[in-house]
């Protein structure tokens, strides 16, 4: 019987149907399915399926974004139940993400944020044109493990260096890891400015974030 419920959850995410995802989440609560089980066995498999389809070139950015949005809607419904039950969803890591000052491009950043969020990270998206001070404040406020810095322009990517310096000055480095991304960013640039990693694409960013969190834990 739960199999039918899980299938509805998976389907809602794969279809990118946010209303159906919310309904499936509510139905899970009504049926007494523990929220964590609904997430892990219902919604996450759908997200993984979409991610695999995207990586294989069978699915596209809109499929991915709609799936992530559906997943988010389901999580919103389930979140109060988790709190009621005093269960904390195991968070893979806390990420603060944003596009650097002077730059208003956010497609890549949004995609990375969505994917991190649906992969179990707690994501705080600061939006675009974010100043170094706001990054530092957000990292402190949310006790972030990782900061993700996006820049699309060669003229704004130098802002990534400024933010790393600001994190350093605030005494947050090295425990807080920095990942950088954006069209002009390279591995060489990431090393040059002292970032902990960069990824070519959004899927790779999730893998990178998992690695960085693992490395952080090992160091502690």
């Amino acid at each position, binding site marked *: 019987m739960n199999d039918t419920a899980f299938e509805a959850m998976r389907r809602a995410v794969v279809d*990118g149907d946010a209303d159906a995802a919310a309904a499936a989440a509510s139905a899970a609560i009504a049926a007494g399915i523990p929220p964590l089980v609904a997430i892990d066995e219902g919604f996450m498999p759908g997200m993984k399926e979409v991610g695999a389809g995207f990586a294989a070139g069978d699915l*596209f*950015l*809109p*499929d991915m*974004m*709609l799936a992530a*949005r559906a997943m988010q809607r389901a999580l919103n419904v389930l979140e109060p139940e988790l709190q009621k039950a005093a269960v904390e969803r195991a968070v893979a890591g806390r990420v603060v993400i944003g596009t650097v000052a002077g730059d208003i491009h*956010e*497609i890549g950043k*949004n*995609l990375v944020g969505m994917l991190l969020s649906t992969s179990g990270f707690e994501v705080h998206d600061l*939006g675009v044109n974010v100043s170094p001070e706001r990054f530092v404040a957000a990292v402190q406020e949310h006790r972030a493990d990782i900061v993700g810095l996006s820049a699309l322009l060669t003229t704004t990517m130098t802002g990534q260096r400024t933010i790393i310096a600001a994190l350093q000055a605030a005494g947050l480095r090295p425990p807080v890891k920095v990942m950088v991304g954006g*069209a002009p960013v*390279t*591995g060489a640039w990431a090393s040059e400015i002292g970032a902990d990693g960069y990824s*070519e694409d959004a899927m790779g960013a999730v893998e990178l974030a998992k690695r960085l969190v693992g490395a952080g834990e090992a160091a502690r």
Partner: protein
Amino acid sequence: MSALPGAPLRPSLRLLGDDLVGRILDEAHELLRDPGVRVQDPEAVALLAGAGAEVAGEVVRIPARLVAAALATAPGSFDLHDRSGAPAVRYGAGVVQFDPGSSGVNVLDPATGDHRPSTADDLVRLVRVAEMLPAYDAQSTAIVCGDVPAGVGDLYRLFLVLLGSAKPIVTGAFSPRGTTAMVDLLALDAGGREALAARPRAVFDVCPSPPLTWTEFGARNLLDLARARVPAEMVSMPLAGGAAPVTLVGSVVQHAAECLAGVVIHQLAGPGAPIVWGGAPSIVDMRTGVTPMGAIETAMLDVAYAQVGRALGLPTHGYLGATDGKVLDAQAGLESGIGALVGALAGIDLISGAGMLDSLRCQSAEKLVLDAEGIAMARRLLGGVATPTATLATAMIRAAGPEARFLEQPETRRLFRGEQLLPSPVIDRASLRAWEDEGRPDTRARARERVEELLAAYRRPALDPGVEAAMTDLVRAVGVPHGLAADLPGVAAARA
């Protein structure tokens, strides 16, 4: 709710005003009266004489009323069918379609990059790649197989295409009587001569010789095809400045005169039989005398004569999308892409030429996959700008909000496939880093990889074993006296 205003345009390209089309046809008629057309097949001459043409030796003067009568019976549209009998190439329907270029004598060897004489095995490979690419609405008998005796070469390559493909086929005979056995072979595939006439699968290219000559070969093919009611496609080749007037418009007049004469001969033998107003013209490069298929003027000649053919109410064909370059380089992409685009904009029903390098001498599977991308781009352009939403933008912009959340709009997912062409990996849109990580593949390397993928994914279309055996028997019976090897070159590869 009333229809909202603002229809998009279907893009098109025309080079001739209506009055100039009229003038071209007037001069073409004038040429048919004086100097007339040379017709080198006695039966064709007798048919023309019997219908009222003035004959002096092989010179035939064709009066306008014979032309008018032929144009009245020639169909304005017809279809080629796939093996299942479904219409797959629609002539005269306002649809632009493509097939690989025919009759290369070399192939671009994928391993060495050399141009080497083509073999039966090469044709099998080309057919498989073209079968897998939706860009190609039809197959062609794309090369001459050097390991097959010339006397049976036309029949044999059609046989190999039939073994490996379910698509319609553009083919042609190598000799005056060559269509006979080929029509027999097609009838086996179709389930009899009547079925073949009702649902033809192949069209035969038939060539007049410039200027104004229907040789025994061309005329005989027209007669035999008209009687079998198997479609004929006239491939007139005015070579501007060499075998035709140097002016583009003058070459179009010559093309029209040759093709009008062809329609008359054809319709006298088989009134109502399908015939196509086609060609493979070119300019002559005055530096060397070569006839460049990638020249822009060559494309302009096709656009212009196709416009004349359409004005006459006939289906059209062109020879574009080929290059004079020797490898898959920038010139090949440039000339082939422009040719396909210009031909598509001209609304030509069937455009042959894809895959061809070296001025139609060399065929390449790798170029077929590259040209398929240019063809897809041309088709996308023809599709034009669509208006699939109630408001053009307002609803989507409001829904996306200032954060530009367009990617998350269900409309984006619903509509992007219709709005955007998704090219194959032959078209490189990767980042510089990703491209470097892949080993910096150039066009040729990407095309080679795609060919290998297509070959691996190819599955031979179903062919009734009894029909295949009968076709094999026919080919063997006709071919062995010509010296065809008993082990039938290419057949093992085709059946693998």
